[in-house]
């Protein structure tokens, strides 16, 4: 039977227009409000994780100076910092925050396909955060097993939070998976089924491609986390032995036998590795759009970029055991996983070349979002190259569990996505608020963050080569680590404290600009993609006024020869751009004409 697409029956989209303050800002079904709720919670919990990392640094840099932190709370900080940053901050902010805000706007849709489910998603996410943070207030505190939660260590009495803390952590993760699934189904269905007229998949901005692919990865990877959480909860609460082998604890055998700790590692990393790309792919997409817009040039190799995103997404499911080279698995597996891991470098390097080639001979406008985007290229190349070291089994074995690994993953999936997030927050702030941020403050924020990043993580590579093990509360005196390593640790700590404090600039900037920023107008960057062409800024509920937009071109028509302005919005028809003879060809349009 003939089926009429719902996107055409515009009136069929049920818009629940809010009637009160509560339905507008709390139980809102508007994707833009939900995005801000997601982003707000994610950033708030991210600040908690940042403070935890600073506590750890203070202990490492100046041991026996502060009473704030003891060995137990150090491990708890390591664990909570890692888990919060990866899952509750980055994943939630990039997919729940940016995904929610940008997908419907970039697809020319009025909202997500199921706004009610979307609203449930953010509040279930809030519940998972509450459960997670509540573990700080139970007896024994949060779990200190490391963010990978490897059994049997998680359940043993020597591990802080082995009773209530770990149970709350697993519970919170399970609830998070439910929240993510409700949101993720919405994002994928919206991209596939609710695009406006003329908007083909190959006309989508790379932001949408990145978030879309990452969400698909999430929908396939989070089940493994859910299952491992359920199985470990059974082990902890029911006394089953899925992951628990026979263990003798302080002379007494525990009531477990025959379980497989390796099984947990496989399940965890089957989630954990795609998780890296769940964070990275949206960042790739966002940074592509920021770079292209501010370089006033189309993104180089758009089709290659799309296929690279898809290839990375596919490959990310067959590399997970490169996190397990030292786990005792069969060396042939190591061979296989090293090969697939190194193959991932191909599409990833392709993306890096394309970003650089996008900048090449571009009409670059060095404003704050562009600073962060270019900074990302540096940190990402840096972190990516150390990934090639660690992907090889023979090099990984001595470097495993040293500060080299810490430096690697913080460069590649900590700092890099965070720089993109700042680029994107500054870039889209005018659309969200209708006002410009303070440029000088933003640039100061960039320079401190960017240089501070190198001050923190470059020395960590060196510490790793020295063999300084990670996750240690204090080194004590060892033969193989020179005493000067402690000086490096102190320097790293000072840099970390400065960078941590500099983030206040960001918050001051945002809150100051919300009231006092210059009015930005609808399209301050002269961006061609659809979200900047809304009739209202910030967009109203329903986004597009009476009629949905029609798209005639891809989102990267910058500096088109013969066009009147240096960008052509996606919703301008082919014949409508002014003819070449009507305008003078101005090579030096350094100032945004739409900024007025």
């Amino acid at each position, binding site marked *: *039977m*003939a*089926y*009429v*697409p*719902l*996107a*055409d*029956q515009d009136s069929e989209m049920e818009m629940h227009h809010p009637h009160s303050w509560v339905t507008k800002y709390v139980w809102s079904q508007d994707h833009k409000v939900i995005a801000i709720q997601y982003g707000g919670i994610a950033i708030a919990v991210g600040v908690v994780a940042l403070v935890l990392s600073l506590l750890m640094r203070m202990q490492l840099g100046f041991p026996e100076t502060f009473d704030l932190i003891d060995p137990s709370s150090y491990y708890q900080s390591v664990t909570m910092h890692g888990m919060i940053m990866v899952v509750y901050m980055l994943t939630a902010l990039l997919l729940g925050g940016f995904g929610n805000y940008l997908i419907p706007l970039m697809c020319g849709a009025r909202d997500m*396909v*199921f706004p009610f489910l979307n609203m449930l998603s953010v509040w279930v996410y809030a519940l998972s955060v509450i459960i997670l943070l509540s573990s700080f207030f139970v007896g024994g505190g949060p779990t200190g097993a490391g963010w990978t939660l490897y059994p049997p260590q998680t359940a043993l009495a020597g591990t802080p939070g082995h009773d209530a803390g770990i149970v709350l952590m697993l519970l919170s993760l399970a609830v998070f998976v439910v929240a993510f*699934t409700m949101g*993720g*189904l*919405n994002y*994928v*269905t919206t991209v*596939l*089924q*609710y*695009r*406006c*007229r*003329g*908007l*083909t*998949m*190959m*006309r989508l901005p790379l932001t949408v491609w990145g978030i879309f692919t990452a969400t698909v990865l999430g*929908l*396939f*990877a*989070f*089940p*493994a986390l*859910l*299952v*491992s959480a*359920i*199985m470990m909860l*059974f082990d902890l609460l*029911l*006394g*089953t*032995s*899925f992951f628990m082998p*026979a263990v003798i604890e302080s002379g007494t055998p525990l*009531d477990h*036998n*025959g*379980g*497989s700790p*390796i*099984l947990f590692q*496989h*399940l965890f990393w*089957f989630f954990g590795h795609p998780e890296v790309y769940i964070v990275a792919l949206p960042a790739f997409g966002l940074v592509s759009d920021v770079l292209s817009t501010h370089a006033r040039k189309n993104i180089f190799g758009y089709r290659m970029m799309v296929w690279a995103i898809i290839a990375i997404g596919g490959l990310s499911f067959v590399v997970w055991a490169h996190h397990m080279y030292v786990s005792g698995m069969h060396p042939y597996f190591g061979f296989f996983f090293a090969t697939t891991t190194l193959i991932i470098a191909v599409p990833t390097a392709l993306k890096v070349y394309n970003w650089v080639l996008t900048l090449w001979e571009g009409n670059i406008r060095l404003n704050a979002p562009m600073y962060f985007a270019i900074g990302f290229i540096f940190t990402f190349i840096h972190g990516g190259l150390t990934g090639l070291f660690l992907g090889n089994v023979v090099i990984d074995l001595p470097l495993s569990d040293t500060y080299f690994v810490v430096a690697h993953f913080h460069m590649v999936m900590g700092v890099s996505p965070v720089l993109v997030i700042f680029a994107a927050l500054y870039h889209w702030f005018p659309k969200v608020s209708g006002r410009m941020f303070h440029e000088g403050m933003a640039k100061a924020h960039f320079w401190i963050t960017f240089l501070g990043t190198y001050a923190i993580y470059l020395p960590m590579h060196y510490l790793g080569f020295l063999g300084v093990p990670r996750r240690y509360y204090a080194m004590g005196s060892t033969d193989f680590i020179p005493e000067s390593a402690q000086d490096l640790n102190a320097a790293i700590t000072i840099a970390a404290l400065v960078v941590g404090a500099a983030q206040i600039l960001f918050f001051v900037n945002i809150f100051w600009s919300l009231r006092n920023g210059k009015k930005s107008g609808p399209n301050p960057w002269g961006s061609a993609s659809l979200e900047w062409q809304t009739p209202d800024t910030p967009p109203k509920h329903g986004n597009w006024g009476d009629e949905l937009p029609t*798209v005639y071109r891809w989102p990267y028509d910058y500096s088109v020869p013969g066009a009147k302005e240096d960008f052509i919005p996606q919703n301008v028809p082919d014949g409508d751009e002014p003819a070449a003879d009507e305008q003078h060809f101005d090579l030096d349009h350094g100032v945004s004409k739409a900024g007025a």
Partner: protein
Amino acid sequence: MSDAAISEPNSTLVEDWSADKQAYHVPWGKAMMWIFLVSDTFIFTSFLTGYLHVRLSTTEPWPLQSEIFALSFGGDPIPLILIAIMTFILITSSGTMALAVNFGYRRDKQKTFWFMAATAAFGASFVGMQVFEWSKLILEEGVRPWGNPFGASQFGSVFFMITGFHGLHVTAGVIYLLTVAFKVKKGHYDKKGYEIVEIAGLYWHFVDLVWVFIFAFFYLL
């Protein structure tokens, strides 16, 4: 409405994905259900892979399922007889569900309702038999999640976890089917169309399919 929006039932995959507006000629709810089911497949795959792994890793012998899951009706015990009946009922319910979808598209509300109700009844009886199976194992045989008298303790752990998780899916499906069935009866979908019956059907067939894999891997292997 533009011409491009008219659906092309015979269009190719490439044409569909190159089109504007939508990649599949299906309603939003159906697309979302498909994506959800693929995601759910990963959950059950992880469960079954985990089960196979612990079955290999455990140090004690794995109990003989054919003896544990045997029932005797007066004479000799018949291996797996209850599971066979449960499997038969669940597959039958897929048949009644397919008929309900068919009558839904014909807009025959009465028959749609009754076939959906029958499907839900089959599902409920499946859950009922599962309750019987569980209570027999727990009360008579002494099988617990943390141990059992027959061998590897993981046998009970896996059994309760996987059949429990599947049973939750069936229970949710019964509630879902009944909700939709009563809405069908009231004429709630006269305007919106009856795709919802097919969407519910997709879920139900998926739950049945998963059972086939559980049956094969857990009870037969």
